[in-house]
């Protein structure tokens, strides 16, 4: 495979514009082999037969959050995180995968989620809502593993919000991992199997639309599906995008909450999916909220450190990146909102580390709290 990207790799001018803002490069004090330019050179070396593929090189390619900051900086227009994903696949095909990545993938294959959690726990969140959730409807709420197991309140808030707004919403029976982590790990065949099952489960609800609070799941359904030839015809939205659309046709309910709020753009939702305005509009729709833009926002938002399976590969540095991201929070902010369960987890860990007086909330939680109030 690497031979086929050789020509593409030649377009890298080694200008280094990509290295400075790379979150992983930063925590390694600019060490080239942990920077995007270094990764491009490692791929180049292997494609030219000048470097032998090794597990040590694989570790460098997996030490990347796939945040895409490098891509927006590249004057040569190289789609870098895409290149790194394909590099991971190539290395995976010859058995070069870091142990942590192999382990997480094994867990998904065996238990249906990266946490090795029992399937029945996936719906524990339903204890937070008053009535049993609906299983059939025209809009399927796909929660994703991290939201389901790690952010139960967000599951409840997302479901309740949609229901309250009159959406014909259903949750997906027997939901399991969509396969996105397998895609990032380079197990393409296994990813395809998982995504195929996920699509079938969504279709069993009778829905023609998927709404999800997880940007990774969204990309799996929306982007990666086409890459593995799964053309499902379902409409796919992120929760904030869907709510934003809904607001255009429905009167906005009376959301109210007194708080100074800022917003962290998740890399996958922002740089990768281009969704920047909807989350801001939703936050600003809440009466009483004072929205303060975060330093380094929108396309230039710094990463939370959790993407691309980096948390699994190098938890210490991954958390360091999250802690650095907190430096971008303006003073006197009370709520740090986001729209990705992984970002929420990472930023919450960082807040705990720094003992910062700030609450990290998914927008769904923020809105639900404002509505219930």
């Amino acid at each position, binding site marked *: 495979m690497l031979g086929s990207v050789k020509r593409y790799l030649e377009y890298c001018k080694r200008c280094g514009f990509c*290295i400075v803002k790379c979150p992983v490069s930063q925590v390694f*004090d600019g*060490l080239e082999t942990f920077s995007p330019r*270094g990764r491009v050179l490692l791929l180049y070396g292997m494609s030219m037969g000048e470097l*032998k593929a090794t597990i040590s090189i694989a570790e460098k390619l997996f030490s990347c959050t796939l945040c895409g900051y490098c891509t927006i900086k590249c004057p040569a*227009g190289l789609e870098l995180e895409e290149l790194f994903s394909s590099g991971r696949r190539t290395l995976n095909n010859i058995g070069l995968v870091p142990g942590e990545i192999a382990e997480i993938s094994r867990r998904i294959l065996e238990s249906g989620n990266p946490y090795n959690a029992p399937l029945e726990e996936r719906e524990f969140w339903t204890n937070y809502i008053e009535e049993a959730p609906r299983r059939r409807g025209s809009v399927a709420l796909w929660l994703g593993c991290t939201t389901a197991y790690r952010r139960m309140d967000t599951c409840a808030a997302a479901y309740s919000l949609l229901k309250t707004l009159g959406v014909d919403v259903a949750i997906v029976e027997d939901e399991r991992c969509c396969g996105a982590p397998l895609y990032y790990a380079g197990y393409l065949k296994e990813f395809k199997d998982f995504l195929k099952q996920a699509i079938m489960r969504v279709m069993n609800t009778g829905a023609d639309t998927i709404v999800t609070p997880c940007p990774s799941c969204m990309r799996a359904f929306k982007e990666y599906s086409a890459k593995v030839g799964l053309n499902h015809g379902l409409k796919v939205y992120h929760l904030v995008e869907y709510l934003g659309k809904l607001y255009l046709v429905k009167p906005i309910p009376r959301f109210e909450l007194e708080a100074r709020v800022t917003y962290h753009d998740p890399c996958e939702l922002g740089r990768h999916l281009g969704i920047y305005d909807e989350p801001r509009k939703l936050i600003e729709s809440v009466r009483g909220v004072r929205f303060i833009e975060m330093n380094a926002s929108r396309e230039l938002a710094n990463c939370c450190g959790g993407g691309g399976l980096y948390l699994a590969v190098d938890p210490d540095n991954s958390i360091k990146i999250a802690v650095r991201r907190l430096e971008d929070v303006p003073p006197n902010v009370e709520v740090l909102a986001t729209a990705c369960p992984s970002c929420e987890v990472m930023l919450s860990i960082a807040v705990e580390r720094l003992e910062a007086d700030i609450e990290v909330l998914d927008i769904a939680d923020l809105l639900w709290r404002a509505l219930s109030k």
Partner: protein
Amino acid sequence: MENRSVLELLKSTLGENKVLCSLENLYVYGFDATPVYRGKPMAVIRAYSTEDVMKVLTIANDYAIPVVPRGHGTSLTGAVIPVEGGLILDLSPMKRIEVDVENGIVVAEAGATIGEVNAECRKYGFFFPPDPASAEVATVGGALATDAGGMRGARYGTMRNWVLAMKVVVPGGRVLRLGAPVYKWRCGLNLLHLFVGSEGTLGVITEATLKMLPLPEKIVRLLALFETVDEAVTAICSIRRRALNPLILELLDESTIKSVNEVFNLNMPEVGAAVIADVDGPKEAVERLGKEMAEVFEECGAISVRIASDEGEMEKLYAARRGAYPAVSRLYPIVLIEDIVVPLSKLAEAIRRIKELSSKYGVAIVVFGHAGDGNIHPCICMSSRDEESMRLAEKVFYEICRIAIELGGTVSGEHGIGLQKVHALVEELKYRESSWLLEVMREVKKVFDPKGIMNPGKFFMRCRKCWEV
């Protein structure tokens, strides 16, 4: 002592984590931003402090091991390629920056980028004037060692004009404190400026004290379009003669405009040349200066002149210049960028002769640059890196250098000599009947670096492996 033992000694002196010997590290640190050169160090050393650098230069000098100081490796001349192996001394971890508002100075470690220095200055309402296009990534050490300039060079010159003092470590581990943190300093020979532009061949810069300026109250930006490069250059010369004192004065030729249109759909009229100019200062003054400048452009035959009305439009007018390098990067896998300077009166002729070369050899040459100070960047663009194409590119490269020399100019205004322009430097000195200056330079080097360990094989030392044209 064997290399392996030297590495063990380095590890025990600096700590294992600062001495990297894995194959992938040695591979990756063997490149810079030139498409031609490659090298392989025996180890990469990561310096976190001046003390680290002192230890490295003591051991390297004792055992005569080559040392190549490295910032972020954005050199466009092969200056940071370890042609003779040895140690790459990576200064990028040294990033401390301190702004001293009262004295109008900023102290930065070698690994801080120019962009980071600027960001820090901005917090206090100041800026750092030199602005290489690579500012976001170029380090203070690298920019000083290459005497980098940029667009604001039309007004502010290059790095040497903005450095007051430096901490430099020389082979043997001795620290030189050159200059002083004051705006005037006259104590004997100016050794401070000797190290500026020395491309890592004398010693290692670990810290610099730089001047900064208060941010201007307002900037006015103009875009003028011309039928021909000649007219554009006439306008540039005319502006230079008046008391307009432009901040930037940039030229883009037709091939640049076509490239940015093709890649970024800018829809710019594909005329012979475009000039982008900025003036800055107090609000009332710059508005008047902007109008006067527009009049000069019109007098010199501009087809159209636009003055940006707001920040958004300023950005738009600038898009073509900013997009010049990215555009050629996207269109061609191989781009050899030149850095010649000619007297302003010869600029039009230089560009005309470069265009003739382009037709003669059938090679795309895109020309843009800081025309306000006669410094242009012809880019030789190749679609393939096969041997024949690379030979042709090298041939054209040297012919362009010769044009600059013959017109009374120089082969490098800001990028430096590195490996790429060794022969061009020799030719330039010969043309000026000053070949013996190379001898002088060699003698000067011996004072600081008697064993010749600092960045060997570079500009004034004939290199076995460098280009033969």
